[in-house]
């Protein structure tokens, strides 16, 4: 088995991982990036609408307003120290991206152009503000490309198509990771002073999702199996406008440009749910509103979807009604929403310039994940105890700047702000830290698990088990939740796990690109994540942000201004049989902004 040694190893090459790699290497660290996909295949490339920063290029804007929107959008569960860092450093980070060559769209005076996006307002909720910096509707693609290009320029070392499958600990610290080289099936050890996880989300837990096939929660699952708790796993965002039936995302930027949601009678129903900013209310609110319309039989033709309308005549009618002077035309839409038009035409044969688009909520974004502080250091308990040598950033991390519901454009901000901070902190850390030796046979346990998977000769293919899990999670731990129903969900996940451990079937016995075996291993991660999500969701007896309970409809600030920490009770990474989880609800939300400014105190969310 080969062993590689680097000051810092970054697991994942999306926006967060590449940003951290760039800044750690600029700070003098010897860095390797280990990624199961070629870096440019990472899902950051799919991000569409924009990256939020209070540049104020088109109208007045301030980081303070961005903080307010983020705290309110997160239904007051966000840690306010993290929100402050997010909003303040967003401005600098976006300007740095421009200096790295990112081709932003421009205003008439040559500055970075900005557009409106859900939940982003000026002056503490007064009106929608232009804050999302964009490169047409392929902002994530441009961020990913630009960061990868800069990493090449800085000669960052890449291990492409290496999948990390375990973390190695010794002397109370993280000392490295175990990875499989996909092309050969060989195991490799990565020995490092600092290891960062930036492995992205886990939308593949659910049946309908905007997420890539590769988003299977590997990072959080691997750490969870080694005893590290996961935070706020009950908060998973369903994006309101997934393409009906497919789940592919239609960006919020469509509504930012004036698009309108309509029910079967052509009513702009968001006027009822969010009278002041209507279609641009935060995502949890819009997703629930769509479901309520559908439940009331007001879906299009009584079916499970509504319409999203960006036809110029519709948009202009509502603009006129609102007393706004600007108007849009087809050419403008074709230019600014090119990806959207392409998606609809390719996959549905619908031309959004002449027909409304059928949409329904789609599983989209994990607010929870690996708990960290604002320096991307992983913390393992309610006292913010740091686990030396371990870092996390991006969607897999929970810093928590999004609280119970993330605002659009704030994920890309999260990646660049906390990826950058993590990279800088790592560069300093590795200067003063020594290598802690690897323990004896660090890959033994995970190799045994892979041998088990590969040798499985039962009756269930991984694809079949996965499909069943996705269906159960969509049905029982989706947008609306209720205790009895969720218990049934846990029972299903438990029995699926049992079949996974005892009745799995693998066809591929080879070593070269054994995707059959890797998919099965990823399914194990998804099952762990599903289990954590369900237990955390049952535990939280209130409704807040994306977590909406039919049996506890109100937010409860007296008892629940706390984060959930869920961990494994058995201490066994690959348990057979019953797998009890431990929940800790004593980690208090950081409310530092509120102390100086009462406008940040929890109040009812109206949009």
């Amino acid at each position, binding site marked *: 088995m080969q062993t590689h040694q680097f000051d810092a190893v970054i697991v994942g090459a999306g926006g967060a991982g590449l940003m951290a790699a760039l800044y750690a290497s600029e700070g003098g660290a010897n860095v390797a990036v280990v990624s199961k*996909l070629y870096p440019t295949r990472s899902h950051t490339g799919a991000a569409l609408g924009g990256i939020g920063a209070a540049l104020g290029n088109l109208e007045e804007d301030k980081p303070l307003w961005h903080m307010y929107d983020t705290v309110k959008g997160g239904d007051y569960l966000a840690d306010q120290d993290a929100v402050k860092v997010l909003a303040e450093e967003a401005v600098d980070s976006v300007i740095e991206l421009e200096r790295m060559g990112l081709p932003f769209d421009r205003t008439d005076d040559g500055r970075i152009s900005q557009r409106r996006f859900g939940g982003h307002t000026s002056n503490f909720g007064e009106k929608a503000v232009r804050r999302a910096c964009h490169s047409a509707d392929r902002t994530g693609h441009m961020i990913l*490309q630009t960061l990868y290009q800069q990493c090449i320029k800085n000669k960052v070392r890449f291990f492409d198509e290496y999948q990390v499958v375990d973390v190695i600990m010794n002397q109370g610290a993280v000392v490295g990771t175990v990875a499989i080289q996909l092309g050969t099936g060989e195991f490799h050890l990565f020995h490092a002073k600092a290891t960062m996880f930036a492995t992205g989300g886990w939308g593949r837990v659910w049946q309908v999702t905007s997420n*890539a096939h*590769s988003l299977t929660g590997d990072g959080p699952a691997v750490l969870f199996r080694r005893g590290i708790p996961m935070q706020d796993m009950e908060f998973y965002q369903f994006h309101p406008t997934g393409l009906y039936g497919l789940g*592919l995302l239609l960006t919020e930027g469509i509504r930012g440009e004036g698009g309108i949601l309509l029910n079967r009678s052509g009513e702009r129903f968001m006027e009822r749910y969010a009278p002041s900013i209507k279609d641009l209310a935060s995502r949890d609110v819009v997703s629930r509103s769509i479901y309520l319309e559908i439940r009331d039989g007001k879906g299009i033709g009584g079916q499970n979807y509504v319409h999203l309308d960006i036809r110029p005549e519709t948009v202009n009618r509502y603009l006129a009604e609102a007393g706004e002077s600007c108007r849009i035309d087809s050419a403008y839409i074709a230019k600014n929403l*090119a990806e959207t038009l392409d998606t609809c035409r390719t996959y549905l044969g619908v031309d959004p310039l002449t027909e409304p688009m059928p949409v329904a909520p789609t599983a989209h974004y994990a607010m929870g994940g690996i708990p960290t502080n604002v320096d991307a250091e992983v913390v393992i308990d309610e006292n913010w105890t740091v686990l030396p040598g371990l870092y996390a950033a991006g969607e897999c991390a929970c810093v928590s700047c999004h609280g119970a519901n993330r605002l659009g454009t704030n994920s890309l901000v999260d990646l660049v702000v906390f990826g950058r901070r993590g990279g800088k902190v790592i560069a300093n850390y590795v200067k003063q830290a020594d290598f802690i030796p690897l323990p004896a046979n660090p890959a033994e346990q995970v190799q045994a698990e892979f041998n088990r998977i590969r040798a499985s000769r039962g009756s269930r293919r991984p694809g079949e088990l996965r499909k069943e899990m996705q269906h159960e999670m969509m049905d029982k731990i989706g947008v609306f939740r209720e205790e009895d129903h969720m218990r049934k969900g846990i029972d299903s996940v438990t029995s699926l796990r049992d079949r996974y451990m005892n009745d799995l079937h693998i*066809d*591929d016995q080879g070593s*070269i690109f054994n995707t059959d075996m890797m998919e099965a291993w990823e399914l194990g991660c998804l099952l762990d994540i599903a289990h954590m999500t369900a237990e955390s969701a049952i535990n939280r007896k209130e409704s807040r942000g994306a977590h909406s309970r039919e049996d506890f409809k109100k937010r409860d600030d007296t008892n629940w201004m706390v984060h959930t920490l869920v961990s494994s009770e058995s201490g066994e990474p690959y348990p057979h049989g019953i797998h009890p989880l431990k929940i800790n609800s004593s980690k208090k939300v950081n409310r530092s902004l509120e102390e100086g400014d009462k406008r940040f105190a929890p109040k009812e969310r109206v949009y």
Partner: protein
Amino acid sequence: MEVTFRVRRYQPDSGNRKPYWQEFVLQDVEPTHRVLEMLHRVKWEQDGTLSFRRSCSSGICGSDAMRINGRNALACKLLIRDVGTKIQVEPILGLPVIKDLIVDMEPFFEHYRQVMPYFVNNDPPPADGRERLQSQEDKDLITDTTNCILCAACTTSCPSFWANGQYVGPAAIVQAHRFIFDTRDHAAKTRIDTLAEPNGVWRCRTIYNCTPACPRGISVTRAIGEVKLAIRNGSPEGIIDPATIPTHE
């Protein structure tokens, strides 16, 4: 409806070192189903050894370029109604096959790295601490080529590349174009010199396979043409009339 897939297989660690064809039949297929999802059905329901790369399933990550009915495409961007009920799938040509539809992408990325695919500008940043200014018209000079997702569909459809794997290929030239024509970048000269070498742009014989192969609708041949002109002129300046650049098709 029923569809038949005829797939070019290569399973080097099964003991069989020779490529072969294998057919799979799927029932209950709809015309709007994606080819990628149907390959998944084969893998998930019939034969777990079938191997291919994929991730986003929405045409943005560039993982799943393959030769489908003889033409390069992303499997996730083709629907069954685009390809019919008899579908032949092979790996893209010109790169070594590793297993089934998976090819070795290293030579492709090596060519990419040759053209300095990164922004260079060592001027001090603006004194006000803000962004550099650029007009939207200038930005639009590169809007088309910044669209590239490095899927290799263009390069592996090019007979010049098949004939000579040292040719940098259309994708690398598209990437170079994105920087050469970026009005903020300062390394155009170096890139132009690299592409003037024997394995640079002049291996392009304007066969035009690349443009229809591109799943992003990039005017690949046009970008190559503009780079050729820039080499002739020794500079990208004055090559283009911005009004004639298509933004997206």
